[in-house]
């Protein structure tokens, strides 16, 4: 019986570039920016890295293929590098590779780098891409907002909300993330918005208005991971530890079988259940101090509160409007602004989420530092990605806590 990943690997250092429309920078610049911070944080030399994982999604529009863009940008010492890609779970997938390698004893120190340079297409939104030679022949040429807007139509019908009622909760989600991002100098979008602005925004894909959609950003984030022993040797007295790292991909049911009703993601509850078990979390509502979820669109965040077991089925709109996931709520969500405002450079996003949880656990989050339950600081944080679209996706759930932690 596998014992899981809990507390076998810790984070020695992390880095994250500023996210945004980094017109003057390429993916190599972004990786160097994030890597420099992580190296300094870890307190190691570059050549101590034994292996590295690169996560990038739109390779055609940015880095090109393979792991070489990472090895070459950072001038790594010819150590093994691997490129991974798993839709919007790509960054977390890079982390999983690095963490598993350390846990396996295959290397002492590993790097996980996620990067995306999206703003080289010449137009707003995500780059256009093929869905594959067969699927291009029959699937709609959907966009990301269009694919996620499907959740809203089904959720509203399924739980008896009007679209206007749902929009109100969605607007609160976006308003909250904008508020949080004002405290984050690295965030892409740092402006405040009003609920009314969100409600009145131009329609992107019904019922998602422009403020229901996350930023399309350039950015990179990375983690240097190692064993608890080596971390202690580096002077990390109570490092941030990986408590769980789980992945649940679709197997086609949502796309092809009538059993999926379209109101939720099928995969997130699976990944969450496994992650809670791996981390030893019995009651996530009582134990999680903060969460970073895949809020690519406001409606996604809304249904994820239920998919992660944090709101009762059909009740997320009420919990959201009650402020439960606000900065001062019971379970602060997207304390760094989330995909919505920190931005969403796809390959980097999972690691960006981990970066925020890491900072919060170490008490290094500056003006947005949370006090945690009981005022002792956050002890346990969750990150979640949903790669793909509700019809088929890769859900990842990771849990981080202090190694000596209060759990």
């Amino acid at each position: 019986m596998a014992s899981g990943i809990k507390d076998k690997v810790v984070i020695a250092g992390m880095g994250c570039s500023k996210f945004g429309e980094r017109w003057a920078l390429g993916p190599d610049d972004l990786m160097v920016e994030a890597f420099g911070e992580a190296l300094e944080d870890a307190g190691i030399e570059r050549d101590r890295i034994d292996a590295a994982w690169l996560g990038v999604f739109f390779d055609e529009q940015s880095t090109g293929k393979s792991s070489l863009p990472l090895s070459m940008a950072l001038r790594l010492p010819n150590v093994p590098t691997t490129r991974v890609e798993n839709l919007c779970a790509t960054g977390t997938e890079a982390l999983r590779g690095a963490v598993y390698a350390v846990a396996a004893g295959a290397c002492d120190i590993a790097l996980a780098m996620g990067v995306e340079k999206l703003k080289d297409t010449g137009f707003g939104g995500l780059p256009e891409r093929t869905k594959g030679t067969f699927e291009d022949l029959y699937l709609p040429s959907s966009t990301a907002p269009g694919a996620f807007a499907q959740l809203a139509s089904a959720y509203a019908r399924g739980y008896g909300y009007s679209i206007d009622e749902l929009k109100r909760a969605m607007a609160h989600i976006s308003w909250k993330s904008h508020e949080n991002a004002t405290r984050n100098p690295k965030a892409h979008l740092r402006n405040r918005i009003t609920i009314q602005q969100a409600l009145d925004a131009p329609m992107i894909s019904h019922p998602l208005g422009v403020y229901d959609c996350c930023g399309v950003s350039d950015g990179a984030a990375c983690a240097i991971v190692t064993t608890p022993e080596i971390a202690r040797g580096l002077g990390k007295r109570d490092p941030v530890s990986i408590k769980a790292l789980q992945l649940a991909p679709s197997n086609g049911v949502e796309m092809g079988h009538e059993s999926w009703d379209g109101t939720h993601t099928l995969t997130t509850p699976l990944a969450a259940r496994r992650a809670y078990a791996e981390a030893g979390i019995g009651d996530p509502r009582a134990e999680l101090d903060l969460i970073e979820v895949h809020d690519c669109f406001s409606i996604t965040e809304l249904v994820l509160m239920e998919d992660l077991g944090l709101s009762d089925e059909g009740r997320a709109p009420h919990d959201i409007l009650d402020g439960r996931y606000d900065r001062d709520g019971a379970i602060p969500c997207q304390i760094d602004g989330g995909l919505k405002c920190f931005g969403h450079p796809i390959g980097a996003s999972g690691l960006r989420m981990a970066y925020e949880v890491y900072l919060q656990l170490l008490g290094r989050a500056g003006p947005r530092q949370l006090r945690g339950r009981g005022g002792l600081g956050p002890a346990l944080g969750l990150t979640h990605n949903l790669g793909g679209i509700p019809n088929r996706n890769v859900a990842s759930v990771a849990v981080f806590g202090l190694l000596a932690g209060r759990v």
Partner: protein
Amino acid sequence: MSDLGSILACGVHVPRLRLPRALIAAETGWLNPPARNAPAGERAIANWDEDALTMAVAAARNCLAGRTAAPAGIAFCSTTAPFADRDDAVLVAAALDLPDTIATQNLCATLRAGTRAVLGARADGAGGSTLVVASDLRPTRVGSPQEPAYGDAAAALLIGPAEAGELARLLGAVSRNADFVDHYRMSGIRFDYALEERWVRDEFLMKAVQQAIGEVLAGAGVNAADVRHLAIPAAPGLARRIAQGSGLAAARCDERLWQHCGDAGAAMPLLEIVAALGRSEPGDLIVAVGLGQGVDALLLRAEAGAGRAAQALEAALARGREETSYVRYLAHRGLIDADFGMRAERDQRTAHTVAYRKRAAVTAFTGGRCERCGAVQFPLSRVCVNPACRAADTQRPHRLADSSGRVKTFTEDWQAFAPRPPYVYGNIEFAEGGNLLMEVTDVEPGELAVGDAVRFEFRIKDEDRARAFRRYFWKAIKS
């Protein structure tokens, strides 16, 4: 006289969108002053995802609905077939999931193609029936007399040996060729060039056509005064004049098609036949005329099933929705260079190797049904999608085209490239189970709701402008 056959079934497709002639007049009156006398009615215009081929498939499906035996032949008649070299009839037959042994014909380059095919059906079809489907989508120059007069539509007739419940019997026919150029369009040219209507009327319609009508009646020993209907591709006033001139004193002519559709080119003679049958009592005699470098004059007798024609026509005409934007119509016809944004630049290359090996799925909309658990799924796959089954190699082909569905989720997407924004798509659950994320067409913003029932139509999926190729797939339509 040899057996000319019977009309066993009919089908009509008139696109949902209708452009009011008054709107055309308002927009082009500056250019062509006579058009200011806003003509009444509307013309049918194909949606951006319809062409002569998709309209033909729609009409043919209506025609074949409820029939169990496949026709032995299919004739596709059009002057605007999308492919000059790719057998359009084979593609239509494939979309209809007809056997690959069916005899295919493409009749083009004349508006008389439909009646030619009807007359050839019994000779070619031998023992079985022949599906004659005629369809046209003729672009018209802005401000031209053709712009309000033409319409886009398709009609299908199943011709075969007499059977109970048939719509009509062909009693006689006369064909005369004449290289009379009332209009023409050279290969590779978009628009018709039409000559003076008075000349066409006086020198051709009132002479050659009247003569052919006289001959077909004489051949059948029928008194002109006993003919109850004249089905002719001509505007109502002109049609009545031809009827009078031909001695068809009691013959009624159609007005509904001209009011709501317009002259549908190669499809028009067949549409006129359907319209005439639709207003016929069993036993009524009908003279039907096809025109185009000559005349086909057909004599038909309405039979017991003629009433089905009225249903076919009314169902097609009734589903109209007004196109309120003349500019949008121009953009869809490629008559103005509208900016659809950078997302429209996406490469729409078709991997033809894939399109061929997946042709049952893409062209015929055939998915799979698991023989072990019964789960229907699209596309057919090696391993069953039912999470409780997941058996391997248990699926048999299961055609979904004639099924129905229900909207489970949807959106109106203003960001995606769409020739007619918003781009509407959603999860469609099939009546027999199974789910597919599908485009929804012929729908306006605010019209669709979760739970709506849908049916499916064969439509243009993408245009590959870089390689001048058009690909097709099935879309959901609110039923």
